[in-house]
């Protein structure tokens, strides 16, 4: 839990959130999570009793809208908030300090995840490669012969690759990164298939369906091909 909310400051921050706008409890929780980038995630068991207590003290009121309690700050609540403006400024400062802590935590966290993932996958890769001993030796010999036989070939290809790379590299670093038409077409096709799959999953695919699909796809392919000419 974040140290930000020691000393009854959660109460102050709740008042501030409700002063911005009337909100229901769930919204308050979500806002706290968002402002603290998910690092401080208060549970409903923390927030709802707090709101209830604020209401008992007459600092907030609630009305039920669509079956949900919407809390609104009262004049007394506003008074308390105004009296504690300095404290609120401190709190905001601490929140910005905590942003730095959060950045550090995020970094360490991701690093850890990434490191253990890399270790895990490296180990898995080793296991996959090992296979039966004999096979791997045989494979290695084959690979070696293969490699020698085609050494010249791949040297040629490396040359091509270098040119290709130079091209990619010179096109690269263009910044904004617009998706080219080709990629968009790929996306359209993928989405199309996903949609059809979903429809097909809900129904029985008969011979007739397949025949119709075949025709429709042939038509579509022809039309697309025509526009490409």
């Amino acid at each position, binding site marked *: 839990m974040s140290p930000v909310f020691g000393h009854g400051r959660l109460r102050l921050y709740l008042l501030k959130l409700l002063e911005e706008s009337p909100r229901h409890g769930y919204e308050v929780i979500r806002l706290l999570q968002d402002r603290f*980038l998910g690092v401080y995630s208060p549970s409903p068991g923390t927030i709802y009793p707090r709101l209830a207590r604020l209401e008992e003290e007459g600092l907030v009121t609630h009305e039920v809208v669509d079956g949900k309690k919407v809390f609104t700050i009262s004049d007394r609540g506003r008074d308390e908030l105004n009296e504690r403006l300095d404290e609120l400024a401190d709190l905001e400062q601490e*929140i910005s300090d905590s942003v730095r802590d959060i950045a550090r935590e*995020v970094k360490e966290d991701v690093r850890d995840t990434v490191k253990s*993932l890399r270790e895990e996958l490296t180990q*898995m*890769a080793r296991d*996959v490669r090992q296979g039966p001993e004999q096979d791997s030796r045989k494979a290695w010999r084959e690979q070696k012969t293969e490699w020698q036989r085609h050494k010249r070939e791949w040297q040629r290809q490396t040359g091509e690759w270098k040119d290709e790379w130079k091209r*990619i590299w010179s096109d690269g670093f263009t910044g904004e990164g617009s*998706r080219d038409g080709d990629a968009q077409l790929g*996306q359209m096709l993928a989405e199309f298939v996903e949609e059809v799959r979903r429809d097909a999953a809900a129904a029985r695919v008969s011979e007739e369906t397949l025949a119709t699909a075949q025709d429709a796809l042939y038509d579509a392919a022809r039309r697309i091909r025509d526009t490409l000419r």
Partner: protein
Amino acid sequence: MRQWTIEKPERLTFDSVRKLNVRIVAGKLAVLASDGPPTLEVTEIDTPPLLVTHDDDGTLTVTYKDLTWDGLLGWLRPGRRSAVLALTVPKDCPVNVGVVSASAVVAGFEDRTSVRSVSGEIVLDGVSGEINADTVSGAVESRGLVGDLSFKSVSGDLTVAQGTPRRLSVTTISGRITADLELPPTGHVTMNSVSGDIVLRLPHAVETDVKIRSNSGRLDAAFPELDHSVQPGAKTLGGRIGGGMASLTANTVSADVTLLKGAHA
């Protein structure tokens, strides 16, 4: 338009930021998505000062006077120019980050995120939408990535933990690629590497078409449905896993490619 010159540790708050550009040389940079008011906090700074510009259209730019996007890669000027800064802006804000040797943490953005680095390490957490990461030798480490990622590097490594790419495009010379991917039906993964090894893990029940090709690298897969074939100058490993649909393509010259299978869901 408003402008500030930052010469000492300082904190600025802005009313509205719709686009962010930040370029620094050395030090540490954090750019986080937050619902709160957009802020810039500089906690350490050398000379020369940082220049902050807030345009009327909501574009916030933080950089040195003489550091342009073009100049970023050729940055060989003497001096330390180390700065430590943290920015929080709304999550739907497009973000452009450029660093020379500084490390950068970018978290929580959902629109378009572009990161360029020479040697600085980049950490991306929970970033979705359209993402571009270009580095020379800096590593890129990402967690919880969703959407489109285009990665280019010379020797910088890429690691993707818990990635759900719609499109993932990787081009590297010698950077190692390690990725643990959920592949949605529309997922489209393309990897080109000269000598940087590629290790990928796909879910147990993935449905994808696979085409992996290498001149001299070793190709291994934990999916028995894929076929190996050897042609002059190239080996391929390909086929369809499950019903297919998502697409995975990898080309290497001498790099090994290993395709791993995740545990049962």
